[in-house]
C-alpha cells in the first residue's frame, strides 16, 4: 500500500516538474522580450500572408495581460491544442509529431549505440589485459566530453560518405541513414555514462565479495559479467534519463550536420526564426521524456537493488542504512563528480 502511495507521490512530483518547466519556458519566451510573437507577425519580412498573420494575431490574444495569455494557452494545451507555427501557420502539434517520429528512431538507435559503447569502453578500462589498453580506455570518457558533436559528425561524414562512399550523405537509405548520425550522438554523449560505469565497475571489482567469489571457485568471466557488472552498473541507471535527454537535444546539431529533417532540425529552424510556440512545444516534449524516464528508473530501482527497501516493506532492521542508499543512489551522478579526478556531472553530458 505504501509503495503505491510512493508511486503516486513520485508521479505527482514529475507532473509538477513538467508544469513548472512549461510555466518557466512560457514566461521566458512570451513575456520577457516584449511581445515577440506580435513583432514577428507584424514584421514585413514574415513569410506568412497578411490574412494568416491576422488570424494568428487574433488566436494569440496579445491584448490580454500575460497571466491571462498563460491561462488561455494552458486551457488550450489541456484540450490538445498546441497552437500554430508563426512561420508556416501550420499546427504545432502536427509539426512536432512529424519531427519527433523521425528523431525518436534516431535517438533509439543512438541509445543502443551509447549503451554498447559505454559497456565496451568500461569493461575494457577495467578488465583488458595490459595497463596501456586499460588507461587508454579509461581516458575515453574525457575525450568524448571534449569533442564537439559537429566535429565528430563531420569526421564520420568525411570518412564514410566522402572518402569510402559507404553511406550517402544526401539520399535517404532507410535504416542505414540512421547509423552515422546515431553513432555521432553516441560518441558525443557516452562520456559521463561511461565515466560513472568505469567507477562503478572498479569499485565493484575491488569489493570484498569478489574475493569470496574467487575463493569459492567462480570463474573470472562469471565474476566479471555476473557479479561485478551487475553491482557496478547500478549507479549508472540514474543516468539513463539524462542520456536520452541529451540524445534528443543533441539531435539539433547532428541533424544540422547530416541535413536531416527531424525534431532537431525543427528546433534549429524555430530558434532561428524565433517561432516561440514551436520552441515551447519542443522543450516540453523533450523535458517530459526526460522526467518520464527519470520517474521510471526511480521506480524500478528498488527492484534492481534489493537493499533499497521499498517504503512498504521497510522493516525494523537497518532502515537508516537503506535510506542512505536511496539518498546516495539518487545523488550518484552529482557526488561522483565531487570526488577528485573522477566523473563529470549531469551538466557535462550536455556537450
Amino acid at each position, binding site marked *: 500500500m505504501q509503495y503505491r502511495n510512493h508511486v503516486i507521490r513520485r508521479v505527482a512530483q514529475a507532473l509538477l*516538474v513538467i508544469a*513548472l518547466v512549461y510555466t518557466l519556458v512560457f514566461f521566458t519566451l512570451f513575456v520577457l522580450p516584449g511581445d515577440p510573437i506580435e513583432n514577428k507577425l507584424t514584421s514585413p519580412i514574415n513569410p506568412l500572408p497578411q490574412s494568416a498573420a491576422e488570424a494568428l494575431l487574433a488566436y494569440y490574444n496579445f491584448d490580454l495581460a500575460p497571466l491571462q495569455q498563460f491561462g488561455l494557452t494552458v486551457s488550450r494545451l489541456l484540450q490538445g491544442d498546441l497552437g500554430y507555427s508563426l512561420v508556416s501557420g501550420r499546427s504545432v502539434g502536427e509539426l512536432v509529431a512529424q519531427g519527433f517520429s523521425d528523431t525518436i528512431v534516431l535517438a533509439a538507435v543512438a541509445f543502443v549505440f551509447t549503451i554498447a559503447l559505454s559497456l565496451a569502453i568500461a569493461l575494457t578500462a577495467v578488465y583488458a589485459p595490459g595497463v596501456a589498453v586499460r588507461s587508454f580506455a579509461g581516458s575515453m570518457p574525457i575525450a568524448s566530453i*571534449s569533442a564537439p558533436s559537429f566535429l565528430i559528425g563531420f569526421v564520420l561524414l568525411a570518412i564514410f560518405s566522402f572518402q569510402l562512399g559507404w553511406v550517402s550523405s544526401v539520399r535517404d537509405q532507410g535504416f542505414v541513414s540512421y547509423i552515422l548520425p546515431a553513432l555521432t550522438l553516441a560518441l558525443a554523449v557516452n562520456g559521463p555514462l561511461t565515466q560513472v560505469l568505469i567507477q562503478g565497475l572498479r569499485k565493484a571489482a575491488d569489493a570484498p565479495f569478489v574475493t569470496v567469489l574467487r575463493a569459492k571457485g567462480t570463474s573470472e568471466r562469471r565474476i566479471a559479467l555476473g557479479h561485478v557488472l551487475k553491482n557496478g552498473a547500478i549507479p549508472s541507471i540514474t543516468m539513463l534519463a539524462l542520456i536520452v535527454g541529451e540524445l534528443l537535444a543533441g539531435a*539539433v546539431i547532428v541533424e544540422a550536420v547530416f541535413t536531416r529533417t527531424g525534431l532537431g532540425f525543427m528546433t534549429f529552424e524555430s530558434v532561428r526564426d524565433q517561432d516561440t510556440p514551436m520552441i515551447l512545444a519542443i522543450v516540453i516534449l523533450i523535458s517530459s521524456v526526460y522526467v518520464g524516464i527519470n520517474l521510471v528508473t526511480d521506480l524500478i530501482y528498488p527492484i534492481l537493488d534489493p537493499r533499497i527497501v521499498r517504503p512498504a516493506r521497510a522493516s525494523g532492521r537497518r532502515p537508516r542504512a537503506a535510506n542512505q542508499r536511496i539518498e546516495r543512489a539518487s545523488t550518484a551522478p552529482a557526488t561522483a563528480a565531487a570526488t577528485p579526478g573522477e566523473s563529470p556531472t549531469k551538466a*557535462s553530458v*550536455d556537450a
Partner: protein
Amino acid sequence: MSIRLQQDRDIISSSAEPGAIGRLVARLGVADVLAIVVVGLVLLSVVAPGVLAPFDPLEPDDANALAAPSAAHWFGTDSLGRDLLSRVIHGTGRTLLGSVVAVFIGLGVGTILGLVAATFGGIVDAVISRIVDVLLSIPGLLLAMVVVVALGFGTLNSAIAVGISSIAAFTRIMRSEVLTVKDLPFVEASHHLGGSRAYVLARHIFPNSYSAVLSLTALQFGLAMIWISSLSFLGYGAPPPDPEWGLLVSEGRQYVVSSPWLVVVPGLVIAATVLSISRLSQLTRERTAA
C-alpha cells in the same frame, strides 16, 4: 592490511620530501606537457593574437581561396582565401571570453544558491531544489537556446545563455557537497571545540565543499566552450565576419566535401583546448591531493 600500510608509507614519504614541485615536473607525462603547451598557446592567442597570427584574419586573397593546408597556410584558407590559422587565433579571444563569462555566471549564482539551500534548509532548500529540478529537466543546450531566443542572438548573449543553463549543475553540486561535508565528523568536532556556525561554515564547510565545485568548474569551462561554439555553429552566436571557433566551422560547412579541413581543423582546435584544460585541472587536483 599490509597493503594498506604500504600505501600509507608511500603517501608519507612522497609528501614529506622537499622539492615536491620539482618532482612533479619530472613526473609529467607527454600528455601533460602537450596540454600545458596547448593552453599556453591559447592564452597567448587571447592576449596577443597579432603576434602569433601570420596573416590578417579578415584580409581576403582571391588567388588563394580554399587552399589545402601547406607550409604557407598551416590550416589552409577559406572560400575567400583568408588564412584559417590566423582566423582561429583571432577567434580564440571571443570563444574563451564567452566561456569565462558563462562559467562566471554559472559558478557565481550556482554556488550561492547551493550554499543557501544547504545552509538554511527547510522551505528555502525545497524551493531552490525544485527550481534546480526544473532547470535540470531541460537538456543544457536546449535551455541555452531558449534563453538565447529570449535575449537575442550574439556572442555575449549566447555566453549568458550558456551561463544560465549551467547554474543548476553548480547549485546541485554545491548543495550536495555542503550537505555531505556538514555531516562529516570534523565539522561536528569543530563545533564541539566551540566553533560558531559562521566560523565552521567559513573555515571548514565552505573550503571543503568548494574544492569539488572548483573541479567541476574546469569541466564546465570546457563544456561552455563547446556549447558556445555549438550555438554559433547553428548561427545564434557571433555574427560574421569576425572569427569565432564555432562560426568558422559553420562557415566551412558548404565546402565540407571539397575542403574538409575548414570544419575539421577548427573542430579539432576546440577539442584539443577542452581536452587540455581538463587535463590541467586534473593535474592540479592530483597535486593538491598529494
